[in-house]
């Protein structure tokens, strides 16, 4: 028994070895590099000793850095909120109101935005939201407004629209899965015990779907904090976020140590927020089977 277990373990290690190697080379090694760079002194595109914490002091106390970090968090939280609020009703509709044999088709349709590349979608949003873009010309054509709105110029709003659209399917799927797991008899039980459809939703369906909601929050929040393309192309560089700042430090100022320190700081913030959410999730999962 013990022998077969250890030989089974060996086979297991053999099986995971190639992807493990891949993960070490492509994830752990760069991560370690960034960590090491962040405590070195950087100049002219190179790093050198001595070790120092000065980079972090600058990042954590510098006004500009703080402001951009705060804005990154603020924008990605807004994006997350918008995305999850939009995704929930879609997931709910597909789970509760679409006939079982049609659900797969609906989920398939929801993934259609992925059929074009992210960059192309961002570019399309520029055309839609921009000065005299599709929205402007439509509204002017309908006589709703006479001046172009140029939504693109409200940096944050257009970033939110673009990112929410990009991440919606990622948010729909985990919420859908958690809603599918809600025993429909529980909803009848809720109504049987005197609650309306709406209050049953609040007291039964919503709490039981929280694991999916929290998964959706993490899936959207983590990548959007570090998103580079959208703020660059949609925000017109006027609303830089962390990733843009890292780019400036690393490539424009050629200070890789500072860039690394910002990256490490950003990762820490994301990690802390994520851990908080995972802990929150535990509360809900703890109650379910």
């Amino acid at each position, binding site marked *: 028994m013990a022998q077969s277990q250890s030989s089974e373990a060996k086979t297991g290690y053999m099986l995971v070895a190639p992807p493990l190697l891949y993960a070490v080379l492509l994830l752990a090694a760069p991560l370690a590099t960034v960590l090491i760079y962040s405590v070195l002194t950087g100049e002219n595109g190179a790093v050198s000793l001595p070790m120092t914490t000065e980079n972090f002091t600058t990042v954590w106390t510098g006004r500009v850095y703080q402001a951009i970090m705060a804005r990154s968090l603020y924008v990605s939280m807004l994006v997350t909120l918008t995305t999850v609020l939009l995704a929930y009703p879609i997931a709910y509709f597909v789970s509760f109101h679409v006939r079982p044999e049609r659900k797969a088709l609906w989920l398939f349709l929801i993934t259609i935005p992925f059929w074009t590349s992210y960059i192309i979608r961002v570019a399309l949003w520029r055309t839609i939201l921009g000065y005299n873009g599709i929205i402007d010309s439509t509204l002017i054509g309908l006589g709703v407004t006479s001046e172009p709105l140029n939504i693109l110029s409200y940096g944050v709003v257009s970033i939110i629209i673009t990112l929410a659209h990009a991440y919606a399917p990622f948010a729909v799927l985990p919420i859908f899965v958690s809603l599918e797991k809600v025993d429909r008899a529980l909803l009848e039980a809720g109504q049987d*015990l005197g609650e309306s459809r709406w209050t049953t939703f609040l007291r039964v369906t919503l709490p039981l779907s929280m694991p999916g909601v929290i998964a959706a929050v993490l899936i959207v929040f983590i990548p959007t904090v570090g998103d580079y393309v959208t703020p660059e192309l949609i925000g017109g560089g006027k609303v830089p976020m962390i990733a843009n700042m890292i780019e400036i430090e690393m490539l424009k100022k050629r200070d890789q140590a500072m860039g690394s320190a910002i990256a490490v700081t950003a990762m820490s913030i994301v990690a802390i927020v994520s851990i908080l959410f995972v802990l929150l999730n535990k509360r809900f999962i703890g*109650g379910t089977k």
Partner: protein
Amino acid sequence: MTFSEDKPVMIEFRDVHKYYGDYHALRGIDGTIKAGEFFSLLGPSGCGKTTLLRTIAGFEGISSGVIMIDDRNMAGVPANVRPTNMVFQSYAIFPHMSVAENVGFGLRRDPRTKAEKAAAVEEMLAMVGLTGYGDRAAHELSGGQRQRVALARALILKPKVLLLDEPLSALDKKMREHMQVELIKLQRQVGITFILVTHDQEEALVMSDRIAVMFEGGIAQLADPETLYRRPNSKQVAEFIGTMNFVPATILSEVGGKVEIEAKGLGKVTLDETQSPPPRGEEPVVGLRPETLTLLFPGQTTSERKVDGLIDEVIYFGDMTYYDVYLGGTDVEVRLSMRNVPGRPILDVGTRVEVAWSPEALVLFR
């Protein structure tokens, strides 16, 4: 005859029909359920018991007809304001809540203070035998405990009618028998009308004041257990509830409710009106339960009628022995309890015996 007769009506069905698309699930349900009654809906799987129960709860609308609960027409009354509560087949315990939160779920709009509600929950838990389980998570409970939580959660709202959909079918045999007794006691204690759905005829007979036997979306017979057992109104009901011998018969005469027949192997018998339910245009047969028959052992006499027979088959069960006896033209099953006749030998196949039977035990189906 039974205690139900003088009770006020709690639920009344008037020609209730229910269609699922083209499928006619309820086909003209009529009948009443009395206040404080332990009532069962009994029938084979798929006959519409759950559907009928769900129309009472308000989870399912009806296509035509009227359902009255406590003199109120339930048309358009949603489930959450009906004076009914349900114990679901799956129990439907809220997995994200503790036992106490589950039991107190329906008390949200109750004007009582938090402390009073907590006391009510405790009292309810004590009633179903779950004192001290309030803080347990729902998933830590066994099947029987989940069922008790479901019961407590429904009863705490003091409904006029408690609906139970096959509540015992998920339990093992021992637990099931135990819960049958508990449920009967609980019902007597709270005095609420219980409507139990079951496909288990024994369970229905043991627990109910009255039973509606359902086949294919209709009520075949609505009666107390004894009437149902002794005087089934059709072959179908007779076969569904227990075992019955059917003996071909010819009708000789019919005068003022009394029917004289000639039953194969048994001879001429006169039956009164309770023994001859309304005709349905079938070949006439008389039914008699195997345990109403007895075998006469040498030296034994009887005040009942007797007929000669030959033992065809013997099945020994320990406390019971089943005999197949050939009675000139027909075979009947005879069930003898060994309890009252210690030391009596098991008879062999081929033994000639006398079978004693009583004309009162017969029911005519035609």
